[in-house]
């Protein structure tokens, strides 16, 4: 990854000899926010590749469960039965696939690329700071994350394989080593990898919040911040407030697994048809509660899905306004909606536990809180659509992705309202309907947001533009294949297809669903293969793309007032001052159709401000 960051840089010319001399400090153990951002981004790409391959294997199994996969059995000798049905996938291997797909995608890809990747790249640039507040901590944060990745990837090769208790790691499955093969060493590696990840995310979050609070440039009051900067601030706050709950849960899980405690293990456990007894003939574990894990996990888990989502919503607002060449509609309500979504995310975790025997009155409270989230979400969608209304849209790659986010946000959000209610959720809980819902809204919107942000801010990463034609082709393949993959899952979910079952067609009533599952699998394979276009575009453009100027998209933000890529310290001279909000497009009083944030107020505007008090320039 570091070579990659080095490529375009070395050709930039200045300080070439110096760069070579200090290569390891400049590009490997770097303290520069841009390099660290690219390091995070590329590491997340590698992890996405792994998790994506796992998804392909899951889909093959769901479409053709008893098929003999001779080639795959050679590649994964542990995962396929060498016995009678040679080349048929083992159930334990299947459990490991969906567990690790979820874990890696949620934490190591979709929390990492948008938040740690683009956060590090964009926060100092958009806030007008020379670098993050504490660059050393920032570098340390990346390398802690890197160790976490290595631990998670290593877990595939230890003992009986990686964790297999689901990405939620519910005990007793995750707490008893004999429960699944993956619960032996694999689960231990899972916990250690997660602890490294959380430590890294906490260090990053401390830097994000501190930088945005303390290091904004003169004039950049909170209500002049770009939506992306707002999103990064909220995401960092959510991470800092929510992840400690998972750390606490992991500590207790480690004690349960290795020191014989019973935090999550109730009395009367039966394992493989034998009661789990101690030497004295009594039950080994007594009085614990698996529900405690669920509460702690989802107290993190629900804010976590907004950690994935909010950056995508921020990117979308920035990109949509730029390519619509219109001011963002309802900026203040957009900020308010984001804060509301972030705040509400802390009081709705119980909607993941409606079937856990919860008191129906409590379930109702959680349901109401969850449905309330639809209000700020609808505000956001309304404002985006209003921004697009009557616009002369420039349809470049970033814009296509941004509109894709809006589309997925609507389709995924609507099924969210179904699941939010405790009564329908009893039918839909743990079915493919849920898988469809969160792949559209959380995974899909986050992924599309990252792709949009990549093509939009690519100049600030490598100083070059991505190829627009290739980008558009990648978008259309991905967009169509994405809907073809996940939309039919709603139907099979309502028809009763549970998630996480190894062979659906062992159930008579699921047999007619096989053709739909085959269609989904073929779409998923197309989706997977289309990503090759992105990889080609990314690496080719990073080295040989068209050189970008300071402001290739005619945007207004501070990041577009410096060279692409920005030099060390971000601005060669003094840090620019901010005089207006970042969405000053199509202001008829100016000759150009966009006005940079650094443009001082004109005499007329100052007069207006003095006369009217709060004006739109006061944002």
């Amino acid at each position: 990854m570091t070579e990659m960051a080095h490529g375009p840089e070395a050709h930039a010319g200045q300080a070439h000899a110096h760069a070579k001399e200090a290569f390891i400090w400049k590009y490997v153990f770097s303290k520069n926010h841009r390099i660290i951002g690219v390091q995070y981004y590329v590491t997340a790409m590698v992890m996405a590749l792994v998790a994506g391959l796992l998804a392909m294997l899951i889909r093959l199994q769901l479409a053709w469960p008893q098929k003999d996969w001779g080639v795959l059995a050679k590649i994964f000798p542990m995962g396929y039965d060498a016995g009678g049905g040679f080349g048929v996938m083992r159930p334990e291997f299947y459990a490991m696939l969906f567990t690790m797909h979820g874990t890696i995608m949620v934490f190591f890809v979709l929390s990492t690329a948008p938040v740690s990747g683009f956060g590090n790249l964009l926060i100092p640039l958009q806030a007008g700071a020379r670098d993050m507040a504490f660059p050393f901590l920032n570098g340390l944060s990346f390398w802690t994350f890197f160790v976490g990745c290595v631990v998670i990837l290593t877990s595939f090769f230890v003992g009986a394989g990686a964790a297999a208790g689901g990405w939620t790691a519910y005990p007793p499955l995750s707490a008893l080593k004999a429960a699944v093969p993956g619960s032996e060493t694999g689960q231990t590696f899972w916990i250690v990898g997660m602890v490294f990840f959380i430590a890294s995310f906490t260090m990053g979050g401390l830097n994000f919040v501190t930088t945005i609070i303390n290091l904004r440039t003169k004039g950049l009051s909170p209500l002049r911040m770009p939506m992306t900067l707002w999103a990064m601030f909220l995401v960092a706050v959510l991470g800092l407030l929510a992840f400690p709950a998972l750390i606490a849960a992991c500590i207790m899980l480690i004690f349960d697994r290795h020191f014989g405690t019973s935090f999550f293990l109730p009395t009367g456990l039966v394992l493989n048809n034998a009661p789990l007894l101690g030497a004295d003939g009594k039950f080994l574990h007594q009085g614990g509660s698996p529900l405690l894990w669920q509460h702690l996990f989802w107290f993190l888990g629900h804010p976590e899905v907004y950690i994935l989502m909010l950056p995508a919503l921020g990117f979308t607002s920035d990109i949509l306004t730029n390519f619509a060449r219109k001011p963002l509609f309802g900026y203040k309500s957009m900020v308010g909606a984001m804060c509301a979504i972030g705040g509400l995310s802390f009081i709705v975790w119980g909607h993941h536990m409606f079937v856990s025997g919860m008191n129906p009155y409590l379930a109702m409270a959680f349901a109401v809180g969850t449905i309330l989230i639809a209000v700020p979400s609808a505000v956001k969608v309304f404002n985006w659509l209003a921004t697009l209304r009557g616009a002369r849209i420039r349809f470049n790659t970033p814009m296509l992705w941004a509109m894709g986010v809006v589309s997925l946000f609507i389709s995924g959000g609507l099924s969210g309202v179904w699941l939010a209610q405790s009564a329908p959720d009893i039918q839909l809980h743990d079915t493919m309907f849920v898988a469809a819902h969160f792949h559209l809204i959380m995974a899909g919107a986050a992924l599309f947001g990252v792709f949009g942000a990549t093509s939009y801010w690519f100049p600030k990463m490598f100083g070059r533009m991505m190829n627009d034609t290739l980008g558009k082709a990648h978008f259309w393949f991905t967009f169509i294949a994405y809907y073809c993959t996940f939309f039919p899952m709603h139907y099979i979910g309502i028809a009763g297809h549970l998630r996480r079952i190894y062979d659906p067609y062992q159930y008579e009533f699921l047999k007619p669903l096989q053709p739909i599952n085959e269609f989904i699998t073929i779409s998923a394979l197309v989706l997977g293969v289309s990503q090759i276009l992105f990889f080609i575009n990314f690496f080719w453009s990073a080295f040989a793309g068209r050189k970008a100027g300071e402001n290739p998209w005619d945007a207004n933000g501070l990041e577009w007032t410096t060279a692409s890529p920005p030099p060390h310290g971000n601005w060669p001279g003094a840090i620019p001052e901010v005089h207006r909000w970042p969405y000053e497009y199509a202001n008829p009083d100016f000759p150009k159709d966009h006005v940079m944030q650094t443009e001082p107020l004109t005499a007329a505007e100052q007069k207006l401000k003095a006369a009217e008090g709060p004006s739109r320039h006061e944002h």
Partner: protein
Amino acid sequence: MMQAETAAAHVPALEAHWGGGASPFGATWQKTMMWIFIVTDGLLFSGLLCGYGFLRHVSPVPWPRQSEVFSIPFIALMTFILITSSMTMGTAVTAARLGDRKRALNNLVFTIVGGLCFLGCQAYEWSHLIHEGARLTGNPWGPPQFTQAFFVLTGFHGSHVFSGLVILIITAIRTGMSKTPAQGIEMAGLYWHFVDLVWVFIFTLFYLL
């Protein structure tokens, strides 16, 4: 919140703090970061304390009476020692701010002694309970969750006290060599006060209630 932000642009005092180009309330980024770290670390303890409360609530067997297991006056003494060390810490911070290095150093040493006494008391309490049969897996007084929560909570807090002591000892040595700015002592102090405050919660929620 929206109204507050809108108003911010028109009240000069607020604009001076939040308008950009200056640190809000004059707090350096180091101090801001320490405060945020304390919030997130505090939530880690609240996660553990909530877990303890949950398990106690759902325990199938009655929870032991703490006063029969622990000597509450002894625990109160530990609490007193720790809170006193917070006071000497505060004195050290004030002295450092006023430039009185000698007084700051003396009070840092008092604080370290207080912390060491607390850890000593905790070691005595642990060995006493283990001697009476308390284990991670069970205990003579009833639900195993009682001692599990005890060892994990006090152990985790003890490790925080220990790391606080390491920070304080480094700060004291550097103060002796005149290398620590007043802010360094203040940040060590923030952490120390936080560790003490956490103990107040553990004392209340685990030993008293």
